[in-house]
């Protein structure tokens, strides 16, 4: 059977809205160029609220670029051009009057390698609320720090050494610190760029549990190399290959009966 690819992609992109709930974030025909490299080609993707969406695909396929479109982090790199439309709750985030700083307060991010600030654990969490003026008094700030660390499951491990440097923690703790740092700004969406790729299996397990818990309060988009991880933590999976959206749908369907040959090959470990 020969299916018109553009129709298939549209159907994939809107797979979520079929259930009647409007998506939290929507990307429409997004193209990203890094200088002469065409990194993303016409990607359209709906991110459903209070769900975990996994982005999988071979190295260099552009899945991290997709992720960074949602908080405009691609702009950190020189000579980047983005076209198309990305919205959060219907608001175009690439519109001229959008303040990137305010956007990033709504869409937090956790990186591949834990990157705590070389400051105390307390200051790591408090930095975001401070610059956004979220806490009026010192007590408010302390409360935010405690709540964020509680939420990230790190409070019991660090409550007695909040003054110590964040970089002195173990890799897994550092990554949870970074998650707590993102939570402290009270975002609506958290983007995670391969958050476990630098961690050992036990630390990875803890982060995955945390993601499962965080789903109740946040919309999460996670880029991962591990198919098992995508299967464990996500409700929806997007397969990206060579800068294009290969397939998008509920995780269960994706891993049990992939519709495209290429997805199937990747999931079976035949390439990538």
């Amino acid at each position, binding site marked *: 059977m020969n299916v018109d690819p553009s129709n298939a992609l549209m159907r994939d992109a809107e797979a979520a809205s079929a259930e009647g709930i409007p998506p939290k974030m929507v990307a429409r025909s997004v193209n990203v160029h890094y200088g002469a490299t065409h990194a993303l080609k016409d990607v359209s993707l709906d991110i459903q609220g209070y769900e975990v969406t996994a982005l999988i695909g071979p190295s260099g396929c552009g899945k991290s670029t997709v992720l960074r479109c949602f908080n405009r982090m691609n702009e950190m790199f020189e000579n980047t051009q983005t076209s198309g439309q990305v919205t959060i709750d219907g608001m175009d985030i690439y519109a001229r009057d959008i303040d990137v700083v305010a956007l990033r307060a709504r869409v937090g*991010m956790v*990186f591949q390698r834990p990157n705590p600030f070389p400051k105390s654990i307390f200051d790591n969490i408090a930095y975001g609320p401070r610059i956004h003026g979220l806490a009026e008094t010192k007590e408010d700030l302390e409360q935010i720090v405690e709540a964020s660390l509680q939420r990230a499951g790190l409070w019991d491990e660090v409550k007695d050494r909040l003054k110590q440097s964040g970089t002195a923690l173990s890799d897994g703790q550092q990554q949870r610190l970074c998650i707590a740092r993102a939570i402290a700004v009270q975002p609506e969406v958290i983007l995670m760029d391969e958050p476990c790729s630098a961690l050992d299996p036990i630390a990875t397990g803890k982060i995955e549990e945390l993601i499962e818990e965080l789903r109740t309060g946040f919309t999460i988009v996670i880029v991962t190399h591990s198919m098992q991880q995508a299967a464990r933590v996500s409700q929806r999976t997007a397969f990206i290959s060579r800068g294009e959206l290969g397939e998008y749908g509920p995780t269960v369907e994706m891993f049990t009966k992939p519709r495209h040959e290429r997805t199937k090959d990747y999931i079976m470990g035949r390439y990538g």
Partner: protein
Amino acid sequence: MTFAQTVSTKRKLSSRNRADTAFKMLGRGALLLAFCSLLALAIAIFSRTLPALTHHQITLDVAFEPDAFDYQTSAPSGTDASYRLIYANYGQIVGRSLEKAFPEIVDPAEKRALRRLVSPTARMQLRDRVLANPSWIGTKQRVALYVSKGAENILDANEETVDPQLTLWLTQLQDRRALSTTFKSTLFTRGDSREPESAGLLAALVGSLLTIAVSVAISFPVGLLSAVYLEQFATRSRLTDIIEVNINNLAAVPSILFGLLGLAVFINVFHMPRSSPLVGGLTLSLMMLPTIIIASRAALSAVPNALKAGALAVGASPVQAIFHHVVPQAMPGIITGTLLAIAQALGETAPLLLLGMVAFIVDLPSEFTDAATALPVQIYMWAESPETAFSNNAAAAVVVLLCLLLALNSLAMILRSRFQKRI
């Protein structure tokens, strides 16, 4: 037979080991050579420093006879009692004391020659002592007086023409244990002088510090902000490439050209006062800028990008991300670079010569617009002098300059460790 056991491999292996050993020996030889030259330099400087830091004194029995204090009988009206003490005939007191010390000398010409033993400043020494203790008048005291320049040269074994008579008297004094050595504090408390024994480097030191203060106050913020802009904000373009090449070239421009620039711009166009620390500092700051910018850029680019990304991701603006996170992280490197530039500027002579900072400065400069000189220029002027005592002073000034650099380095080390501790 394994690969490692073949004949050709073994031969190659032993020749490689020989090359290793030869290189190690070469390195050690170079280090030894460097160390020996350093040692020779240190010995040369320190052996000359000691005479510059000491004064020889003759201890004499001085009789403060009242008639010397009536030398000028008519004091102008309106002057107080100390006038009598200030204008007493101290020269006569010194002369008589010397004659008493050598009673065997009767020839009037030789008696006068005796006065060549003590320094002309001995009179001032006596005057100051009497002003402090007016009750000395009419009594006899043992007082140590500075020896003259000629005597100093003989005692320090300087290569100057030696007066055989003075040598004889000095040996006699030495036998009577009437000669002593004291620390010469004038070197650190006075400005320059025509007399090497009363010449000091304080004026030059203050001039240097004022000059460096001006240049750091300008070049550190300007250099740091330029580096931050070029490294973090500017997008790479033909213009930034040209700027980068020019900064690198500026770092290699001979310093005397900066002096010419300072002369043309700051003095001739803006009419700033010549010889002032202000002009010197401005010119040196131009010289320091490339060094600071290059070092700061290197330090900034060594900060992992992830740190900036982390700050941006929690919603920091680019300026906040850079000044809250990237710059503090790069601070140790920036401080090292700035210090390097300061050390370079502190030892700079050529541009200051063109700006008129090669002045004879007796009074301490107290403002940025006062005429001043700098330590390296003072060293240059003293070293040029034909008198050995002045070149000894120059050696002492070199040691002071080295100590200043050492102090700067320690300060930088403290600052660096403080920044690292905060991280």
